[in-house]
């Protein structure tokens, strides 16, 4: 039984063991043995890099099918602001929300406004914060998992302000249950997600609590039906429709969206896992102590770059930027009221409930003395390896191969550079066999006779 829930599955029928996934995995969680890729569950942070890398579409994300809606008496769609960037310039959030209702949701909730509120709440939090810096955004669940697994000592830097999607789901359910006289369990809140990891953050929140969301539907799954549903939807005048967009919140779809609202603070925005890893290494090395806040997204350019989106990520990134520019130019600022946010902030409205625990990887051995011994063995094995990370052994690098050997998960002879050794051993066996076989030949004297 696995301790961790993952929504990434490898289809053994389709996998050809081509190792693209193994090489790209940022946490070295994939091995290929006997032509088949497998995921080491405890190492996986659900980033979805392997989904995109697989040339055979053998790695599939598991999101909720549309059918889940029937389980609830009232359903609400809560789209990631990245959904707003999937369509042309004329199709603004108001129209998209109406389109979602036409698709069968009872209601659709604009998340951008909640994002704006959370931006303000982060600002409040940073103003009074005196602890070690920089604080790190928890908006991207992959980043949170990366810290749990690879940077457990940075875990206290993750900001304890909850994400807009969770706060929105909590509040909208509360409101709707009162309005419609339904139990909160009878209301289903569905996140329309740009990436598979949000699904896991709903099924198994990193903070060990329970998510307020009931499921996640992939933007790529809903895109087609939504596009047809939009055809008949009446649109408000462009200008009027602009007025409903929260300028603070819409930016959450792209990297830098939170930072640009924290103008008085020293903040950084970073996207892409390899870049994030560099920045986190710098934090550990004490190089970023002057930075107050870091916004990090595992997908390039932020949520618009998620593997379950449809539009080219640079186009959708630009769309969000243009929208913000237009709103600024037209001086439209549909923003939450800062005084209102402060009041809620003081009531602990924004704070996350569950505690975030590290998820360190399994040590080389449970016994410390044995672990030290194994570490020395690993160093010795690694020293003897060619260090070219060819991957033929089925481990992504020579270093992970050495580790896999001391963990007993593979054997030294699987390194292709050990083939001469293996050949030597085999040929020795063979020559011994040959020696024996000569002794055992009885036929020669018989033929002489004949």
């Amino acid at each position: 039984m696995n301790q961790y829930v993952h929504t990434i599955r490898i289809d053994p029928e389709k996998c050809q063991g081509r190792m693209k996934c193994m090489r790209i995995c940022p946490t070295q969680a994939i091995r290929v043995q006997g032509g088949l890729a497998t995921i080491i569950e405890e190492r996986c942070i659900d980033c979805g890099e392997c989904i995109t890398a697989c040339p055979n579409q053998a790695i599939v994300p598991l999101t909720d099918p549309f059918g889940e809606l029937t389980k609830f008496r009232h359903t609400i769609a809560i789209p990631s602001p990245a959904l707003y960037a999937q369509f042309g310039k004329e199709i603004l959030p108001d129209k998209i929300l109406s389109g979602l209702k036409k698709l069968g949701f009872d209601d659709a909730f604009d998340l951008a406004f909640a994002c704006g509120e959370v931006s303000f709440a982060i600002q409040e939090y940073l103003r009074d914060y005196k602890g070690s810096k920089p604080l790190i955004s928890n908006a991207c669940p992959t980043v949170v998992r990366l810290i749990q697994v690879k940077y457990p000592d940075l875990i206290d830097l993750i900001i304890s302000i909850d994400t807009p999607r969770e706060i929105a789901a909590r509040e909208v359910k509360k409101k709707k249950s009162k309005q419609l006289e339904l139990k909160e369990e009878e209301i289903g809140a569905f996140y329309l997600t740009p990436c598979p990891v949000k699904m896991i953050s709903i099924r198994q929140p990193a903070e060990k609590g329970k998510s307020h969301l009931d499921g996640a539907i992939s933007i790529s799954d809903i895109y087609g039906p939504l596009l047809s549903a939009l055809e008949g939807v009446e649109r408000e005048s462009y200008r009027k429709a602009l007025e409903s967009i929260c300028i603070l919140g819409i930016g959450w779809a792209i990297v830098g969206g939170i930072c640009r609202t924290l103008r008085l603070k020293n903040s950084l925005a970073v996207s892409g896992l390899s870049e994030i890893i560099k920045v986190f290494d710098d934090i550990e090395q004490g190089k970023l102590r002057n930075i107050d806040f870091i916004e990090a997204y595992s997908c390039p350019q932020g949520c618009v770059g998620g593997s379950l989106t449809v539009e080219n990520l640079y186009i959708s990134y630009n769309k969000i930027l243009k929208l913000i520019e237009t709103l600024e130019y037209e001086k439209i600022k549909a923003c939450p009221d800062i005084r209102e946010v402060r009041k809620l902030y003081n009531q602990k409205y924004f704070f996350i409930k569950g505690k975030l625990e590290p998820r360190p990887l399994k040590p080389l051995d449970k016994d410390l003395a044995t672990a030290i011994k194994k570490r020395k063995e690993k160093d010795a094995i690694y020293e003897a390896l060619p260090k070219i990370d060819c991957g033929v052994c089925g481990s992504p690098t020579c270093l992970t191969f050495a580790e896999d050997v001391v963990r007993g998960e593979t054997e030294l002879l699987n390194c292709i550079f050990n083939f001469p050794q293996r050949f030597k051993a085999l040929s020795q066996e063979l020559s011994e066999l040959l020696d024996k076989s000569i002794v055992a030949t009885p036929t020669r004297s018989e033929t002489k006779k004949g």
Partner: protein
Amino acid sequence: MTDENELSLAFEIIGGDFRRAGSVSTKIKEILQEIGIDSSVIYRAAIAMYEAEMNVVMYAKKGQFTLHLSPSMIQMKIDDEGPGIGDIGLAMQEGYSTATNEMREMGFGAGMGLPNIKKNADKFEISSTLGKGTSLHMFFYLNQQREE
């Protein structure tokens, strides 16, 4: 306790090399994680060793970082060839620093280095000779009873 259950590693730290500053500590941290040292100990050790490594990078010509690991404790020894510390008592005071403005620009030199090391290590020894260098020796004790 046999020798094979102990691990000794030495690393070179180059003074003034801010680009690679902290890389030795990162390497050691990975070793501690892999061996399965408790994360609260790693957290304390990480703070102490980054501070110690940064001290060498900031003030000394070069230094040697020696890690000695046994099932009962982690020992770290940092010996540098540098200006040395004239008044150790003063250097141990919080807020006292001889950092230049550039160092402060980078976020260092808050005068918390040595006090932070002392606070985070279970045992801490320091000795210094003016004009020659400084030696730090820190110890972290390991509770051998470990959870499943």
